[in-house]
């Protein structure tokens, strides 16, 4: 890949996905380009770039997948979980009527690792956990993964970030390779299907204090991304927070939210004064 081709690709990727690569990442980018060219049968950068720009057979999603860790596992991006208990919940509890539930939404939740991680993290790291009614909802468009989430059975790789004491405390081993989330914990997380670009499906879920919406908006086209952002806005209580994936930026998608920089994470907030939606 020539310098010019690399720059052209980087400009396109930033504009289309918000992913920013500099010269230091060039080798990393080139390796993935080579992989995708091989997979698509493209014989030149130009023909592959045309395919990418035209999103032929979902190539943008395939390309982004090559750059992101699609595998989901417990305590992934746990700096956001740290931010949740260090800052976000404290902020949300200010002015929240006593007795009102703390509501957290993991969307898309895939096979459940994220919402169960949130539950475990709160139990382990939030001293006030027993003083509040906490609702955790996991949602995904794929009803197949929701079935797996409800079953709560995971292999070693999914548990790799959890220490043995946490596994012991929250899982039961069902064979040499698999562990099941304990029934009590499974019962603390609710799952439901949702399409993020359909407000008729998002609205019934009500308003949340914190939404984890990681690594999905990056795949949407501009219009769908904006619709999804507006739906998420409606699903946040005024002053509520949304956490995106590390390569995503809400500021590039929508002006509805305000950026909040905390010690552990950058998150986005529905402004308190704009109590519409």
């Amino acid at each position: 890949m020539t310098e010019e081709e690399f720059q052209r690709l980087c400009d396109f990727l930033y504009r289309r996905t918000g992913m920013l690569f500099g010269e230091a990442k060039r080798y990393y980018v080139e390796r993935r380009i080579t992989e995708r060219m091989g997979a698509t049968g493209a014989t030149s950068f130009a023909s592959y770039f045309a395919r990418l720009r035209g999103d032929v057979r979902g190539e943008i999603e395939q390309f982004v997948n090559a750059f992101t860790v699609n595998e989901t596992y417990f305590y992934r991006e746990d700096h956001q979980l740290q931010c949740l208990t260090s800052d976000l919940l404290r902020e949300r509890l200010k002015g929240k009527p006593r007795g009102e539930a703390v509501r957290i939404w993991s969307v898309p939740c895939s096979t459940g690792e994220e919402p169960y991680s949130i539950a475990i993290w709160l139990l382990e790291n939030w001293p006030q956990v027993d003083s509040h009614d906490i609702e955790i909802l996991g949602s995904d468009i794929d009803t197949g993964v929701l079935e797996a989430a409800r079953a709560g059975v995971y292999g070693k790789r999914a548990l790799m970030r959890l220490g043995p004491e946490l596994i012991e405390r929250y899982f039961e081993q069902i064979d040499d390779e698999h562990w099941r989330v304990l029934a009590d914990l499974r019962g603390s997380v609710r799952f439901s299907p949702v399409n993020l670009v359909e407000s008729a499906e998002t609205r019934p879920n009500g308003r949340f204090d914190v939404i984890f919406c990681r690594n999905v908006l990056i795949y949407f086209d501009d219009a769908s991304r904006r619709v999804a952002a507006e739906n998420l806005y409606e699903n946040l209580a005024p002053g509520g927070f949304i956490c995106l994936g590390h390569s995503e930026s809400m500021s590039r998608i929508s002006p509805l939210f305000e950026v909040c920089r905390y010690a552990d994470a950058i998150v986005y907030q529905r402004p308190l004064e704009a109590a519409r939606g």
Partner: protein
Amino acid sequence: MGGDDGKVLAALTSGTNDQRWAAARAAGDIPGGVQALGRALSSEADPRLREAFFTSLMRARSLEAVDAVLPHLRSDDANLRTGALDALRGMAETAAPRLPILLSDQDADVRLLACEILRDLPSAEATPLLCRLLEREGQVNVCASAVEVLAEIGGPEALPALAACAARFPNEPFLVFSIKAASARIGGQPPEHG
């Protein structure tokens, strides 16, 4: 139009912030809603509500929606102009039939923004339009916008138009430099038809 639909459309301009937000999100699915959204944008001052208006128009993705957005490309309000541009880029294929006219518009700012909309079209559609613009365009800034878009999407078929444009503006070092950089990016590559 049913009574409820009429209330929604009326709320676009006369409701509270909450009501205008809800109406903006619903109007795209109501007969006459697209035109009403376009009209209501002129009087909407809240940037978050404008965003919802434009998103509804983008979601409608029709030539009617394009025509409802287009007047705002000429707005004196930079935020409204930018909102219109983003909305049109989000439905660039739908807007394509209007682009040749926009690229010939009397207003140089409109021509400049039209170049940006072309960025979201397939190269085979956008490149000839940009090349034709480069051949006749008298405003340096409009040429620079076309050159920047070609740097991303153009193929070698754009090189003669780029060279001719540079020759027409020998005293505009920034444009000449931009054309040189764009030509280097796209030079030597086979035409793209993505």
